[in-house]
């Protein structure tokens, strides 16, 4: 009394690509060192060029 076997479609593979877009917000302005270092280097370069230009 077992019913006949019959083929059924398999569930297709489906990827979750939206999850890859989940990112932390930028913490750049919340962290001390990288921002300040960058500023002081550009400040130095600017100052240096400014000094060079005046001469």
């Amino acid at each position, binding site marked *: 009394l077992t019913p006949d076997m019959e083929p059924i*479609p398999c569930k*297709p*593979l*489906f*990827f*979750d*690509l*939206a*999850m*890859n*877009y*989940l*990112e*932390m*917000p930028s*913490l750049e302005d*919340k*962290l*001390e060192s990288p921002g300040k270092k960058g500023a002081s280097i550009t400040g130095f370069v600017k100052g240096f060029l400014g000094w060079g230009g005046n001469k």
Partner: protein
Amino acid sequence: MSKETNTKEALVKAAYSDVNKFASNQEYDKAVKAVNRILGVAPDDQTALHCKVVCLMQLSKFDEAHKFIEKNRMNGTLIFEKAYCEYRLNKQLQALKTIDEAGMQPLPDKLKELRTQVLYRLEKYEECLEAYKDIIKNSSDEYEDERRTNLSAVAANLALDPNKDVPDVP
């Protein structure tokens, strides 16, 4: 008084540096603890609130993340995060509503991708197929193969319906 402000600022800065460190190591349980230290002294810090939502989601705590978004009235800003939680909590109609009612034109890429996955779960395969064709045409990232696999899944589902034509998959 000013000393107190200084202590608070120092604490927040140190905690943010921890959040940054743990998140880049994908240690989100530790990152949540660091975020909680910030929220303990600055409960309205929007960046910290956002961080907490992302960490909870990375930990697959979608129900908690969703409630946290609503409790902190971030419905209007964290559209993607809110809709993604709803998608994972199997509230597809609500997820679609969240995305569409945000009224963003044009829809940012991440919301387009999510909306298309929601359409798949809602079995709106024809609309889903068109959406994938559009995304594939306009994107060039490392997930092209996965996206084409999804497109094939949509086509396979359409092919099961005897009333519909089997679409051409580009």
